[in-house]
C-alpha cells in the first residue's frame, strides 16, 4: 500500500492535538529548550509548504496582477513563519542525544509532528524532478493544481494555529523556570508567538478568499508517494471485484511507468519496437473490449433510477472508446516493418499491458482463465446483468474502464515521445529489402525512411487524442455515476466534473509534454493558476535543469524586462505609425522567441547495433535526403 499525503497529515494532526491536550510539559529548562527546537522545525516546515504553493517575493506578490487574490496573504504568512523560525532558532542543542526519543511526552509529540509534516512535504516533492518543480509523475499537475493548493492552504492554516497555541504554552513554561532560561529566550519565544499569530491571521484571510471544499481536501489527502506500486498478480479465478481492482492497479502502474521512462528511448536497449508493437495491439484489444462492455451495460441503464441520462452517456463513452480502438489499430498498421537494433518484449510496461488485457478480457467473458488463445474454445460474453446488476456496480465498472483508458492515453503519449526520440537517435531501421531499388545497400537493415517514421508518429498522435477523449468521456460518466473525484485518474480528479463536461480536445491530452503540436497541452492542469507561464529565459534555464532559485529569479526578471521593453517598443511603433512614419517592427512574440528555449541539442549516439546493422553515424544530412524515398 503506497503511503499518501493523508497518512502524513493525519499523523501530524494527531501528534499536534496530543501535544496540546495531553499532559502538561515538564517545567524544566531542558524540556523547554527541546520543545523550542521542535517548534523551530515545525515553523520552518510550514514556511516551506507556503514557499511551494506561493514561490513569489513580497513585492511580486503585491504588485503582480496575474496572481490569484490569496497569494499576497500566503506570501505574508510565509514571511511571518520564516521570522518565527528565526526567532525559535536556538544555539542550545536539545538535551537528548541525537536520534534518541525525547523524554518529555509533549516534546516527543512535537518531534513526531514535525517529522510527519516534513515527510508529507517530501512526499509531494517526489512528483517533481529532483530539485525542480518540473513534472515527474501523473500526479504532478494535481499537486500544483488550484484545488490542491486551496486544500493545502487550509491544512497549513490549521497547523499554524496549533503551532501558535503550543508556542504560547512553551513560553509560559520558560517564564515558570526563568532561573534556567535566560531572558533572551523569553524574548525569542515571545517574538515567535507574535509572528505565528501574524501568519495564522494571514492564512485565515487567504482561506476566506479561497474557500476549500471537502472534495478538495479529499483529493489532497489521496495524493500518493511517487512510487510504482507493486504488481497485483493474476490469481484466477478472480471475482469481478478482484478484476476491477486489478485493472485499476495495472492502470496506475502503467501511468507511473510512462512518467518515468522519459528520455530512455535514445539509448535504452529495453526500448524496442517489439515492445511498442505489443503495447499497441494490447491497447486496441482493451479499447475494443471496453467498448463492448459499455454498449452492453448501456442497454440496461434504463433499469437504474439514476443518473437519468446514463444510457446516452454510456453510448457516447462507447463511441469514444471505439474511436480509440480504431486509432490504435492504425498505429499497428503504421509500424509496418520498422525495428530497433535490439529486439524483444523488454519494456517495463509489457507485464502490465498484458495483465490489463487479461483482466479486461476476464471481465468481458465468463471464462475465469480467458486469454487471447482461448478465444475459439467456447467462450461466452458476460451478460449485462452479470456485469452491472445495479447502479453501484455500473459506477465501479465505469471507474475501472476510465482508469484503463486514461492509462492508455498516457502510454500513447509516452510512446509518441519515445518513438520520436528513438527516431532522432537513428535507432529505427527497416529491412533493406523493403526499400526501393534506388537504395544500393550491402546490409540487411537500413535506417527507416523519414516518411515511414512520420506515419508512425502521426498515427500515435491520433491515438493519444482518441484515448484521452475516451478517458475523458468515461470520466464524465463516472462523475455522473457519483464516483468520488479522488477515485478517478489524477488528471480528471484535479480538473473536476465541471471542466470534464465542457472540456474540448485541447484539454483531452495527457498533461505531459510530448513535443507534439496536436492535442497535447503544455504541462499542467488546465485552469491551474498558481504559477504564471514561464518566459523564454526561465524556460531555457528549466530546460537546462537549473534549480538554483537565484538564477531562476534572475531569469524571471529578465523575461519581465524583455516583455516591458517589447511593450514599450510596441507603443512607440504605434505612435510612429500614427504620425505617418513607415512601420516595420516584427511581432513581439517573434522577438521573445529569439531567446534560447532549451539546451543546445546534443546528439546522443545510440548503442552500436548488432553485426548486420551498419554503423551509419557519419551519414550526412545530404546523403540521408538522397537516400530517402522522396529524395530522388
Amino acid at each position, binding site marked *: 500500500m503506497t503511503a499518501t499525503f493523508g497518512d502524513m497529515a493525519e499523523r501530524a494532526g494527531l501528534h499536534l492535538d496530543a501535544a496540546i491536550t495531553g499532559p502538561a510539559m515538564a517545567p524544566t529548562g531542558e524540556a523547554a529548550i527541546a520543545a523550542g527546537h521542535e517548534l523551530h522545525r515545525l515553523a520552518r516546515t510550514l514556511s516551506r509548504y507556503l514557499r511551494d504553493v506561493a514561490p513569489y517575493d513580497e513585492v511580486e506578490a503585491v504588485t503582480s496582477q496575474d496572481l490569484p487574490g490569496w497569494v499576497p496573504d500566503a506570501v505574508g504568512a510565509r514571511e511571518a513563519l520564516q521570522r518565527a523560525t528565526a526567532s525559535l532558532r536556538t544555539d542550545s542543542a536539545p538535551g537528548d542525544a541525537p536520534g534518541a526519543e525525547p523524554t518529555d511526552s509533549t516534546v516527543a509529540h512535537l518531534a513526531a509532528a514535525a517529522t510527519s509534516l516534513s515527510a508529507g512535504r517530501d512526499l509531494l516533492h517526489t512528483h517533481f524532478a529532483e530539485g525542480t518543480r518540473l513534472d515527474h509523475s501523473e500526479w504532478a499537475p494535481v499537486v500544483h493544481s488550484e484545488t490542491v493548493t486551496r486544500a493545502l492552504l487550509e491544512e497549513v492554516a490549521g497547523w499554524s494555529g496549533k503551532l501558535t497555541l503550543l508556542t504560547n504554552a512553551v513560553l509560559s513554561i520558560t517564564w515558570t523556570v526563568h532561573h534556567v532560561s535566560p531572558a533572551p529566550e523569553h524574548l525569542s519565544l515571545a517574538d515567535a508567538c507574535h509572528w505565528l499569530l501574524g501568519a495564522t491571521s494571514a492564512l485565515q484571510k487567504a482561506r476566506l478568499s479561497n474557500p476549500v471544499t471537502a472534495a478538495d481536501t479529499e483529493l489532497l489527502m489521496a495524493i500518493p508517494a511517487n512510487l510504482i506500486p507493486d504488481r497485483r498478480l493474476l490469481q484466477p479465478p478472480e471475482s469481478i471485484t478482484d478484476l476491477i481492482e486489478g485493472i485499476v492497479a495495472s492502470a496506475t502502474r502503467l501511468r507511473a511507468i510512462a512518467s518515468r521512462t522519459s528520455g530512455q528511448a535514445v539509448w535504452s536497449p529495453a526500448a524496442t519496437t*517489439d515492445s511498442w*508493437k*505489443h503495447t499497441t*495491439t494490447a491497447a*486496441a*484489444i482493451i479499447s*475494443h*473490449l471496453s467498448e*463492448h462492455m459499455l454498449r452492453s451495460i448501456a442497454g440496461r441503464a434504463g433499469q437504474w433510477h439514476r443518473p437519468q441520462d446514463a444510457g446516452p452517456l454510456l453510448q457516447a463513452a462507447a463511441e469514444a472508446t471505439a474511436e480509440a480502438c480504431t486509432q490504435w*489499430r492504425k498505429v*499497428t*498498421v503504421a*509500424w*509496418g*516493418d520498422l*525495428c530497433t537494433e535490439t529486439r524483444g518484449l523488454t519494456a517495463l510496461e509489457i507485464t502490465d499491458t498484458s495483465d490489463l*488485457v487479461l483482466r479486461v*478480457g476476464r471481465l*468481458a*467473458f465468463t471464462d475465469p482463465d480467458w486469454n*487471447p*488463445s*482461448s*478465444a*475459439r*474454445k467456447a*467462450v461466452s*460474453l458476460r451478460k449485462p446483468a452479470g456485469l452491472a446488476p445495479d447502479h453501484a456496480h455500473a459506477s465501479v465498472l465505469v471507474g475501472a474502464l476510465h482508469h484503463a483508458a486514461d492509462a492508455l492515453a498516457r502510454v500513447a503519449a509516452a510512446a509518441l515521445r519515445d518513438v520520436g526520440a528513438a527516431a532522432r537517435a537513428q535507432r529505427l531501421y527497416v*529491412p533493406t*529489402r*523493403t526499400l526501393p531499388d534506388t537504395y544500393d545497400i550491402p546490409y*540487411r*537493415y537500413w535506417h527507416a525512411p523519414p516518411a515511414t517514421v512520420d506515419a508512425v508518429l502521426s498515427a500515435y498522435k491520433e491515438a493519444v487524442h482518441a484515448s484521452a477523449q475516451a478517458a475523458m468521456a468515461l470520466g464524465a460518466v463516472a462523475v455522473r455515476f457519483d464516483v468520488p473525484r479522488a477515485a478517478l485518474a489524477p488528471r480528471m480528479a484535479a480538473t473536476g466534473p465541471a471542466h470534464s463536461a465542457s472540456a474540448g480536445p485541447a484539454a483531452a491530452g495527457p498533461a505531459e509534454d510530448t513535443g507534439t503540436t496536436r492535442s497535447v497541452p503544455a504541462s499542467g492542469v488546465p485552469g491551474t493558476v498558481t504559477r504564471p507561464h514561464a518566459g523564454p529565459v526561465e524556460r531555457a534555464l528549466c530546460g537546462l535543469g537549473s534549480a538554483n532559485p537565484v538564477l531562476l529569479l534572475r531569469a524571471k526578471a529578465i523575461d519581465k524586462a524583455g516583455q516591458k521593453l517589447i511593450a514599450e517598443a510596441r507603443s512607440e511603433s504605434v505612435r510612429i505609425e500614427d504620425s505617418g512614419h513607415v512601420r516595420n517592427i516584427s511581432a513581439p512574440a517573434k522577438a521573445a522567441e529569439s531567446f534560447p528555449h532549451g539546451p543546445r541539442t546534443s546528439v546522443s549516439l545510440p548503442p552500436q547495433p548488432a553485426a*548486420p546493422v551498419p554503423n551509419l553515424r557519419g551519414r550526412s544530412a545530404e546523403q540521408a535526403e538522397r537516400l530517402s524515398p522522396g529524395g530522388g
Partner: protein
Amino acid sequence: MVMQEIEDIRARLEAAPLAADALAATLAAALDAFGVLLATCRDSEERSVELFAAFAFAAAAAAEGRHILLTAPSLPSAQGLVTSHAACVQADLEVTADALADLAGTLSRHLSSAARRVQDPGDHAACCDAAREAARVHELLARGD
C-alpha cells in the same frame, strides 16, 4: 476469394520442397503466406468481439514472421516489396479462422523442416524464428478441442 488464396498458398508451400531451389521457393511461399495471414487477420478483427483479441495477436505474430523472413539471405530478391494482400473475408468467420489456423500450422511445419536442412546461419535463424511465429498464429486461431 480469401479461401482460394489460402488454398493456393498452401499448395505452394507443399510444392516448394520439390522445387530446384527448395529453400528459395519455401521462403518465398512462406513470405506470401505470412502476408495472407496478416491481411486476413486484420480484416477479420472487427467482425467478432469474441475473436478480436485472437485475430489482433495473430496479425501481430504474422507481421513479425513476415519481418523475420525479409532478412533471410536466401529469399529471392524480388520478394518483399508487396506489403499487403487484398483480402476479402468470406461470411463465415469460423471457417476463415479454421483455414488460417490450418495454413499457419502448415507454414510452421515447412519452416521448421527447412531450418533443419539449411546451412547458412542467417537462413537457419530466419526459418526457426518465423516457424515460431507461425506456430503462435496457429495456437491463437486453432479450435484446440
